[in-house]
């Protein structure tokens, strides 16, 4: 027995689909236990500008996914991270006790999507940090390789600032750290 809200969301699910150029994607569950939810989000100014879901699962799982997308669209990422299983169930007018944990994975999938977005941002920043130039041939490289990708010369990476240095260097020319 499901509440009217569950049946309504199951019958007319909101935001079904996938965002092709999503900023973050999160999947939760597995087909063995009967539920798999996939959330994709588009982020702008730290807010969820768009969200779509795809779900393999029971009526509760589909309703949960649908209402989660509705609850967080336009919200900040922190607000999205604060969403709990309990608030989702409450918004649906309650869930049967046995569905509370197995089918209520919408918030987990959403949290994974936000985490995915955040880790992508972080690695972007990290990548930016590693943009440097080969001290021999001046080619740009984007990761701290021990040799230049272009001319093949062995190089040193400053452990403090990440600057690429000539092999014989003992003091970083950028930040002054002993290398």
């Amino acid at each position: 027995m499901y509440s009217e809200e569950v049946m309504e969301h199951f019958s007319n699910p909101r935001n079904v689909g996938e965002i092709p150029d999503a900023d973050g994607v999160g999947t939760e569950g597995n087909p063995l236990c009967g539920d798999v939810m996939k959330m994709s989000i588009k982020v702008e100014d730290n807010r969820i500008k768009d969200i779509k879901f795809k779900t393999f699962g029971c009526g509760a799982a589909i309703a949960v996914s649908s209402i989660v997308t509705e609850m967080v669209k336009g919200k900040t990422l922190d607000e999205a991270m604060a969403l709990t299983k309990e608030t989702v169930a409450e918004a649906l007018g309650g869930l049967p006790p046995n569905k509370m944990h197995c089918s209520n994975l919408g918030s987990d999938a959403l949290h994974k999507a936000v985490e995915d977005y955040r880790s992508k941002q972080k690695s972007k920043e990290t990548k930016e940090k590693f943009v440097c130039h080969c001290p021999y041939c001046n080619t740009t490289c984007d990761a701290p390789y021990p040799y230049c990708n272009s001319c093949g010369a062995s190089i040193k990476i400053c452990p403090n600032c990440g600057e690429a240095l000539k092999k014989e260097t003992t003091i970083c020319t950028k930040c002054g750290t002993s290398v």
Partner: protein
Amino acid sequence: MSEKSIAKKVYLDHIATTPCHPKVVEAMQPYFREIFGNPQSDHEFGWQAKMAIEEARGKIANLIKALPQEIIFVSSGTEANNFALKGIANAFEKKGRHIIASSIEHRSVLTPLKFLEKSGYKVTYLPVDNFGLVNPDDVRNNITNETILISVMHANNEIGTIEPIAEIGKIAKEKGIIFHTDAAASAGTVPLDVAQLNVDLMSISAHKFYGPKGVGALYVKKGVKITPLIHGGVQEAGRRTGIENVPGIVGFGVAAELSDKEINKRIGYLIPLRDKLKKGILEKIDHVYYNGHPSERLPNNVNIAIEYVEGEAMLLSMMKEGIATASASTCTMMSLETSHVLQGIGVPPQIANSSLVFSIGVDNTEEDIDRVIDVLPKIIERLRAMSAIYPERQ
């Protein structure tokens, strides 16, 4: 969609329960207010009730070709199974403590067996093949000097497979071991003959064949010793005490009489509907598995698995269209366990979660089947479009 939702409701879950036949309801009526006496009472009210019970007993005996005194009335198929297993285990305790059963038995067999295991009995659960059949050789090879009971269901309630009961019964007879069969899914639906099947005990349930709920019977072959489950007064010769469910027993008797009379006609009506439903689904939907035996199966059962769609979501979608059916998906089970029957026949768990079980009844029409064949593909298309595991189209 809204236009269709006001269409006639289609009930295709007859393995769960059936509606009472109008003649059953009619026959039960006087036993609520007019003939309400305690069958043990020595007055007219009591005697009339007692006579009604004995008349019903005869009808149920006829249905399975048994003697009236071999029929013990109980409250349900579950009670019949508990009575058979615990009653034989207790009565033959001194002979041995080993029981053989199939691994795809109903929960009302498996749970009492687990209980007996806790009390020191050893149970061997036999595997089944991909169609759900028990191999009689497996039964033979697992018999030990300690074996006191073999229990194999007549037909499986989920996949409809009919087991080689007569053959297994022959082995049990040769070895002098008590043989029980749970025939709750098949009694009243397919002809049963206890002598031909070589069974010592058989569980049957009224509500599976247009009788009322709350009443069933255990057939116990004449001369087989069994310990009662419920101790009390004198009812059922002390083998099952507590006041009899008189209206229920009367309804049970009428349902048995009707089934006995119409069984071949019913089978002839159900099989074409069953085969039409199967064919229609397999033709119109891709990635579909048909579970159970192609020929050795109940005349009313269709079990399919539709990949990439979860069972309960299909049930809810069909409910909205006025169609009632069942699934063995984890999500429809309070236990949240994958169907042990589908697992037993080797269906992978993620496909077992996509199962649908249709069971057809004598009130269903060809139009009902057409409705399902029309509605189901649309439901599957909608659910697959939102499924996270449906492979992208090429």
